[in-house]
């Protein structure tokens, strides 16, 4: 394999992205209330358990049939095209909400999940994690199995009356497991 080029370093999103990155219906991968729509929601907290009011979350996921979307139109939602990507800001209580669908498994017997990127003023760089759907396929997931047993639950969403709840703890006790991919700086 060829030597990889060294990646340009990431930096903090800072405090002033609010007029630049959020956009109309950015958090609506499907219109709320449409057939099959669920909420993916939760609270982002810092190392002291305090809500983070100015975080930005992005998700990327397969559709309900487990197909990876290849459609454009994420910035100009037409309410019909599922692009698989969304962006949500946290509110003053650290809460975020996406309207989306439960992703299907991308391969038979694999565990469905939603990829999540977290950006916040207090983070030098973005963080990646996954929100797995609760279910029995989880026991066969190679990534979850590579984690200490007591930390696996931090990557698994809970079902509730709205859909899925997935809280994100940036630091401290019970910190969410974050992922580093090849080429990412330690």
């Amino acid at each position: 394999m060829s030597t990889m080029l060294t990646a340009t370093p990431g930096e903090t999103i800072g405090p002033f992205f609010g007029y630049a990155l959020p956009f109309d219906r950015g958090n609506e991968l499907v219109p709320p209330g449409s057939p099959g729509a669920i909420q993916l929601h939760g609270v982002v907290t810092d190392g002291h358990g305090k809500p983070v009011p100015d975080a930005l979350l992005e998700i990327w996921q397969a559709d309900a049939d487990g197909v990876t979307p290849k459609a454009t139109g994420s910035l100009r939602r037409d309410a019909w095209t599922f692009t698989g990507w969304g962006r949500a800001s946290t509110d003053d209580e650290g809460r975020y909400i996406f309207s989306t669908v439960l992703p299907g498994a991308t391969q038979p017997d694999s565990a469905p999940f939603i990829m999540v990127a977290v950006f916040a003023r207090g983070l030098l760089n973005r963080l990646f994690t996954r929100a797995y759907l609760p279910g029995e396929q989880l026991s066969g997931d190679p990534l979850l199995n590579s984690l200490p047993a007591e930390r696996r639950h931090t990557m698994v969403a809970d079902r509730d009356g709205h859909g899925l709840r997935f809280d994100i703890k940036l630091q401290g006790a019970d910190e969410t497991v974050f992922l580093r991919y090849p080429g990412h700086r330690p």
Partner: protein
Amino acid sequence: MWTPCFGERDVHPLESDLTIQHNGAPIGERTVVTGRIVDGDGRAVRRQLVEIWQANASGRYIHKRDQHPAPIDPNFTGVGRCLTDDDGYYHFTTIKPGPYPWKNHHNAWRPAHIHFSLFGTEFTQRMITQMYFPGDPLSGLDPILQSITDQKARDRLVASYDHDLTTHEWATGYRWDIVLTGSARTPIENPDSGGEHR
């Protein structure tokens, strides 16, 4: 996972010119910022979204939480978008941002910078960073830039002045190339193999 979730329908070509978004011309040094985005194998990152945001020429953000008593420019918002072209190049026309003070410590000033939000062909290449201008005396004093401890890595965030990009009686030109992580084609980027936890 492949992320082609943006396209021509999402971004109008004029969104890459931050100097024409209002009725008049903004105050400040008109500047072109361009460069090439490649992946870890040096392959062009084609037709992907680039978003930027920045302060105006006097170092003021439009954001409501920015209380720096420098003037807002009614002709400058400081937000732009574009798609890279088929060779991975992005191109913005903007105003060179001013330095701005923040409350991190006494007399703390951020060097002039432009925030860049970048997408690759995989979601794991997603990145947000900041571009700086060469020779800025504030760079060595900035805790955010200095939080990257390796000088070579810091240098990767500094654009270079390019006189060939500068246009006669119109705009100065800066060039800044970007390398995203990994590659869409290497087996280690297979999403099924997952990532390493930290």
